[in-house]
């Protein structure tokens, strides 16, 4: 029973590796192409079920290197669901490689799971890097130049994180997160501790794409394949945020020194993301900037240093991760500006519904997942007395909703362009039973996230409590 908790990781990594090898060796029969995403999605769903069933037990593994607590349960369940839905709803003919397209999201999910369960710095870093590496691979498939750029940016981020972790280790004499927390909780913040923290979170912010550091990953995501973009904007951000949350909890009270700066960054992200989303017309950049805006809310919640803020950020992270990962996947190959999605509601109703819900959720429009998450964070901000940031966040949300309405207008009000005038970049996404099912499941998740918010938020709260926050 104890080791059943590791089954989800095992399933995911084995599936990913198997698909990689089989695909690399060319052992994939042509007919199996139709079933590979379905099999992968099913496996991940099984892993999700096992995680929910068995993951509630609080245990440690591998001599304490891996920890299963409520936080890990939340994070792993969320990322498994994200991966399953992304794989199911992706527009596979638009992807450059089937086996890599299936394997990389699974690997990235595995990376997040490792980071979520990590009890020490090494595991944290390893999980983060795995997720990032998966994204580099997928991006480089289509655009090697962008892959290289992402690799360099990622390297800088990694170096910042590593330097920070190294300094922390040097300062505390421990790599174990709970031991670090025990050491630091009785100390006052000092320069020697503050600077590594700054480097650490700077690196994580660069990874996650938090404004103004979104200049690193975001342009890369705009040029990647649909799933690649989703991976970069969604799963990698979730990985970085997961690592960041664990470190925040472990390094308390040092990160609170940077709370004002975090607030500024959050405000910049919320308002800037919304404004940028309003300024662009093309759907993928719009989704990307909406995701940046929602990341600002997550950062704001984390910066409150209240447990409720952390829980709210986790809650929002789940919603944001789903929408940011699956949104570009649903968009599929229709990425050449507004004309590509004009009238999609008439010709691809289920995909269009999913796309609409993704955009609205990222904008924080009621009554969808993003709205509940943002309001939960707003409640935490109110409790901490940060009404200025709250006001700016709501301003950003208004701009985001306006941008989302612009996309909905194109989807449902404008008529579709004629088939003969559609170029390759404006081709309609493929319709398969799996993609339709994926889109339906995605829509149900986004619509029902708030409806069934109690268990989810409860789990997030338990997760925050499990990190030792009060």
């Amino acid at each position, binding site marked *: 029973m104890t080791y059943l908790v590791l089954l989800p990781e095992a399933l995911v990594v084995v599936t990913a590796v198997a698909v990689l090898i089989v695909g690399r060796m060319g052992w994939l029969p042509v007919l199996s192409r139709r079933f590979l995403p379905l099999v992968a999605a099913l496996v991940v769903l099984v892993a999700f079920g096992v995680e929910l069933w068995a993951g509630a037990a609080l245990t440690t593994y591998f001599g304490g290197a891996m920890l299963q607590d409520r936080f890990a349960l939340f994070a792993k369940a969320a990322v498994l669901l994200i991966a399953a839905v992304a794989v199911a709803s992706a527009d596979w003919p638009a992807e450059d490689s089937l086996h890599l397209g299936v394997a990389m999201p699974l690997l990235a999910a595995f990376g997040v799971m490792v980071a979520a369960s990590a009890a020490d710095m090494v595991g944290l870093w390893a999980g983060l890097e795995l997720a990032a590496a998966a994204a580099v691979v997928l991006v480089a498939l289509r655009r090697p130049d962008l892959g290289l750029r992402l690799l360099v940016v990622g390297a800088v981020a990694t170096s910042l994180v590593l330097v920070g972790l190294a300094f922390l280790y040097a300062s505390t004499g421990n790599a174990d997160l709970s031991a670090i927390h025990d050491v630091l909780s009785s100390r006052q913040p000092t320069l020697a501790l503050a600077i590594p923290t700054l480097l650490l979170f700077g690196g994580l912010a660069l990874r996650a794409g938090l404004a103004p550091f979104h200049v690193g990953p975001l342009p890369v995501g705009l040029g990647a394949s649909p799933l690649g973009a989703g991976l970069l904007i969604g799963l990698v951000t979730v990985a970085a945020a997961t690592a960041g949350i664990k470190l925040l909890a472990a390094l308390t009270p040092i990160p609170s020194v940077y709370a004002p700066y975090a607030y500024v960054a959050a405000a910049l992200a919320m308002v800037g993301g919304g404004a940028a*989303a309003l300024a662009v017309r093309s759907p993928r950049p719009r989704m990307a*900037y909406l995701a940046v805006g929602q990341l600002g809310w997550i950062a704001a919640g984390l910066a409150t240093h209240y447990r409720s803020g952390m829980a709210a950020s986790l809650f929002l992270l789940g919603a944001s991760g789903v929408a940011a990962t699956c949104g570009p996947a649903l968009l599929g190959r229709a990425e050449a500006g507004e004309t590509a999605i004009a009238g999609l509601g008439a010709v691809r109703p289920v995909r269009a519904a999913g796309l609409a819900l993704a955009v609205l959720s990222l904008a924080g429009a009621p009554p969808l997942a993003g709205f509940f998450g943002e309001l939960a964070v707003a409640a935490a901000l109110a409790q901490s007395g940060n009404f200025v940031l709250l006001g700016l966040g709501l301003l950003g949300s208004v701009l985001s909703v306006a941008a989302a309405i612009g996309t909905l207008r194109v989807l449902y009000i404008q008529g579709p362009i004629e088939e003969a005038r559609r170029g390759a970049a404006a081709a309609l996404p493929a319709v398969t039973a799996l993609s339709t099912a994926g889109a339906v499941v995605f829509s149900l998740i986004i619509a029902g996230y708030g409806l069934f918010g109690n268990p989810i938020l409860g789990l997030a709260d338990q997760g925050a409590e499990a990190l030792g926050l009060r």
Partner: protein
Amino acid sequence: MFGTVITLLLTLLVAWGLTKKSPYVATYQYINLSIAFQGPTNFQTFAINLVLRVDHLTVIALLAVLVCVFAAIGWHQVLGRGEPGAARFHAVVTLLLFACSGMLMSQDLAELFGFWTIGGALTYLLLAHRWGLAEPARRARVALALPFLTDVCLLSGIAWLYARYGTQDLSTLVPILHTNPGWTVRSLVVASVLLFIGVGGRLALWPFSSWITQTATSAPPAASAIVQSAWSVVGIVVLYRLTPIFVASNQRALQVLLGACVVSAVVAGLLGLLGSEPRRAVALAGAAVMAIAAAVVINGAYHQPAAFGIAGVAAVLALAPARAGALLAISTIANAMRTDDLLEMGDAWRRMRASSGALLACGAVMALSAAGALAYGVSSRSKPGLALGEAVFVVAIGALRIYFGASFGPLLRRRAFDPDRVREPGGARGWPYWLGAAGAALLVASLTTGYLNFLDGKKHPQPALEAYAIWAAVVIAGFAVCAFALMRGKDGALGASAYGGVWVARGTSVLFAGLDRFLVAPSTDIARRLGDWIPAGDSALGRFATTSGQLALAAGRAPALPLVVVLAIVLAVVLALVAPGIAR
């Protein structure tokens, strides 16, 4: 049919009311709400009751209104055949009659205001009857705006009283005017002024008379006649019923109100002498007599509470039919002579004797009704008396000026007009006569104390004969002066009037232009500009948001890689410097 039924019912009501010795009161709950469970008991419930009080005053007033309406409709049947919307006209008149009955019978101020508003709306519809023409529609808007503003004052006064006393039923309000907690003399003064302005607007006391003078020529004559006569009666009765509130304020307030009535009477009378539009002159003469009557009502309350105020009411009851009759008679003449200019009229005494005679009779009644009221209510030696005497004098001149102007002198041939074809229209000539006769009868009655006693149920001593004589002499003097002036040189006299009228018209148009330029246009212009600026501001905000977004996008296109590399180098250097062992 509906109108016939209403008229019949009201006639029966009048007949029945005349037989009753004491007032009949019927109460019907319209609204009765509990609104609070604590605080002063007066304010714990809100009730509007339909309290219908039928006393002798109500009945006679109703009779006067009925007579006026009946005659005007009869006249309209013949000479108003060319007017559009006959069914609409009759429907509105019937409803106005209904509203007037409601106003006359109302004891509850909120109920009164309800009927008052209905009457006001119907009045506008009557005066704006000729929808299809631009000029009548424009003039009718004054008849809507000005009285509505005074109606707002009436509403404010009623609401002010309610706010202080928690009741709007006159029977319960008057006894507690000085006893309720929270009352002050100031609040009563404010209420009195507001109520007076509200009623004065509908009485068309100068300076609120423009709504009847502006529409005197643009509205159908029967409509003007009905409106002027009906509102005269209703307004004066309501004013009379509100005098206990005025009395409860203070003497100074009453003096001011009295002064306002006196000024209004004098100015309206003088204005009636200027200009050559006969219908406007009739309207102004009537407005002057109304002001005199209002002064009598208030003076009666000022000196001896409500003693002779009823004389003013009685005067108006006589004035109303005469006013309507004068309007219809001059309209008949104007119609036949196809002109609204006294300078172009003439010889009506020979060609249209019936209408001309009716005009004379009605004019005389108008002037004498004022004298009758003054005989009871105002001393000729007092300052108001002197001023009112001048007003009566001027009214008398004005009333007869119209008669002389229309009835004598040559009727000149004009383009497309043959004087030989001017003759009395059959079927319509009797109505102004009947109105004159009714007015005369009521005038004679108003000179007897028995009639006044009948009206208000109180005992009134008979004024001295001298008083009658003095005031009648003033009127006769006015007649004489007018006759002399016009018989000696009709053209000169009327020309002078016309010349004065031109200046008055210029002054009025300057005033209206000034009002329009400095009040109406700037207000509406501000509203229009705001209506443009606000969307422009919104658009600017939207552009700002879009520009901010584009800036954010541009920032995203910044050369990230070099920046990040530089940042990493800087941080590495900083770290190296602060690392232990390097810096102390």
